[in-house]
């Protein structure tokens, strides 16, 4: 009886952010354990886990940006479009215009920056609804991708391809292949970038004033104003960082696919939002955690893998899976919110 009581009180006194984070991590661990137990050999290899990271490095970055904006109570659905635009623009720059790799990174950052400045200004200072601004941003980016170059193509530039194929080995982790050789597990460069971003954003949200202001503005805009926080500037910065991260994530995506195409990152914004929600970021703002978002991305990918392994490997099933997970977590969030009003 004593033990039960203290667990209940611990849960009750936890902050919303922490509670949702715990739920997310538990769900992920359970899912991965399920996969390991029931779906067998593939999941037991460390490389599978590394591949999840490889496939989703860009998504991790995009989701971090998305979480930031969601914590302030806003949303940005242009990130997928920006990713595609960055891919195409950089591809054209490198192959058709003979640009350098560094230059292409600069282009990616520039696109993200411009988007952030424009959308941030409209949302924060003109007080236009973020959804409609970013919806327009998304459509503009998708359209521009085709305008930049009508046909999809692979980048042939050697320096770039070399960069793309670089493998970062993880010492000590690996598995034995058919020939009996030990192959080190590896990740791509993009994963390293993504992990750095996750750590940076975590520090930002936890230890900087501006980061905490995000939570305040998302929690109660009116109070934040009265407490002396510059609400407009806070929102502006949130959208700015999100778009810049979209630019960076776009470049990571570009490194992963090595091509430009109008259909890249299709649905990425929804995946980013879903990952954030699964990771414990509340739609209504004020609650969220970068670590949770990271696990949210992993959870999303794991469940897609589980679904595929179980035989439903039509591309259509991913859409439904994401939607169902979104639904479940939205309901969990409503329940957590409801216990608040008691």
């Amino acid at each position, binding site marked *: 009886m004593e033990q039960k009581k203290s667990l209940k009180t611990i849960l009750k006194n936890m902050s919303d952010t922490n509670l949702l984070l715990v739920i997310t991590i538990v769900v992920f661990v359970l899912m991965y354990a399920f996969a390991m137990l029931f779906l067998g050999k593939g999941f037991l290899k460390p490389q599978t886990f590394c591949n999840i990271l490889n496939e989703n490095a860009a998504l991790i970055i995009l989701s971090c940006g998305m979480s930031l904006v969601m914590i302030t109570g806003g949303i940005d659905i242009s990130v997928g479009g920006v990713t595609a635009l960055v891919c195409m623009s950089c591809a054209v720059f490198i192959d058709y215009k003979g640009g350098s790799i560094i230059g292409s990174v600069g282009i990616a950052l520039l696109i993200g920056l411009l988007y952030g400045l424009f959308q941030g200004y409209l949302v924060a200072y003109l007080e*236009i609804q973020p959804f409609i601004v970013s919806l327009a941003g998304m459509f503009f980016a998708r359209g521009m991708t085709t305008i930049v170059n009508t046909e999809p193509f692979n980048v042939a530039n050697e320096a770039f391809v070399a960069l793309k194929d670089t493998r970062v080995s993880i010492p000590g982790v690996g598995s034995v292949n058919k020939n009996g050789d030990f192959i080190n597990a590896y990740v791509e460069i993009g994963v390293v970038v993504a992990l750095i971003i996750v750590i940076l954003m975590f520090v930002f949200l936890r230890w900087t004033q501006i980061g905490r202001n995000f939570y305040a503005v998302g929690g109660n805009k009116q109070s934040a104003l009265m407490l002396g926080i510059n609400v407009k500037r806070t929102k502006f910065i949130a959208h700015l960082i999100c778009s810049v991260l979209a630019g960076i994530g776009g470049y990571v995506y570009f490194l992963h696919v090595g091509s430009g195409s109008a259909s890249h990152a299709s649905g990425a914004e929804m995946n980013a939002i879903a990952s954030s929600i699964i990771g414990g970021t509340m*739609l209504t703002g004020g609650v969220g955690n970068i670590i949770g978002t990271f696990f949210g991305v992993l959870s999303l990918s794991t469940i897609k893998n589980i679904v595929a392994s179980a035989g439903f490997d039509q591309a259509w099933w991913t859409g439904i899976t994401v939607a169902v997970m*979104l639904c479940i977590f939205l309901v969990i969030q409503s329940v957590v919110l409801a216990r608040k009003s008691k």
Partner: protein
Amino acid sequence: MERVKQRFVISNIFRNQLFIPIAALLIIFIFNLIADPTFFKITLGYNNAGNPLLNGYLITILDYGSELAILAIGMTLVTAASGGQDISVGAAIAIAGSVILRVLCGSNSRSEELQAPIIVAFLIACVVAALFGAFNGVLVAVFKIQPMVATLILYTAGRSIAAWINNNELPIVNDVRFTYFGGLIPGIPIPVPFFIAAICVAIIFLILKFTTLGLYTQAVGINERAAKLNGLNPVVIKILTFVILGLCVAVCGLIKTSRLSTINYSVIAKDIEMDAILAVALGGNALGGGKFNMWASILGAYVIQALTTTLYKFNVKSNALPAYKAVVVIILVVASAPIVREKAQEIVKKIKSGKMEKEVA
């Protein structure tokens, strides 16, 4: 009490909500007039089956704009009551179309005969679309999720569901009568979607006239708390608007599958949600909910189609279209932002007082 007679002042024209879509239409027409007057040419020709058919860009606008107009009817109501937009309409049209094809073709995707009367297929599609609409409505009204976010779920899953309905096959309907709805009735040269839209517009007109739907949706959208205290049930009203949108989706699904007699799950009604939202916004309706003018939205739909058709005429690729429309959305939305309006009024005042000072001096 005497009623103050409204003077016929020029400013009244500007204040009428219909001004915006009409002005936009005029701008597009004048642009085309200057760029290439053949835009306005209408010729009478014959299609493959030997039926008379009117040709011309204007006819295209009437044809495809009608789909948007039907959608705009439902979207206007949803926007008015819930203060948000439904971005799942494209996916929902895919589902509705898929249901129609499934009913008509049964499990054989190349059947020679219709498995059921077209009207039955349409009614079943209506029911399914209404149910999905209700689903969205419940998320918004009961779980209080923002409409754009709530409809994200169907947006993500809808096309997958549509494909699943037909086991990812692409059924083809071989009955020529099915093509009437998206095409032509032999002997009548005007595209049928226009007539369907006209019927829908008539229906909504009757509903708005003979029920209190208009008053209730506006009341709920403007002040939900006060509406409740007047005996209204905002949950029911909001769900109702989503169901009506569902019915509009079913009609669009019929038209679109009829055009091709088949379906392409990822392409059908792609990006139509953007157009529908634009139609409502261009009609001068507040995207945040409240008062609405249905006719302005319907006109707005045709204006959007005029824009799309004009862009096509100038060889803009369909993939690039969204960029242009995005610009239009941004301009519209910035121009109608309260802060921008306030600043504009201040500037106008300054100019006026500046002028007066000059006159006095």
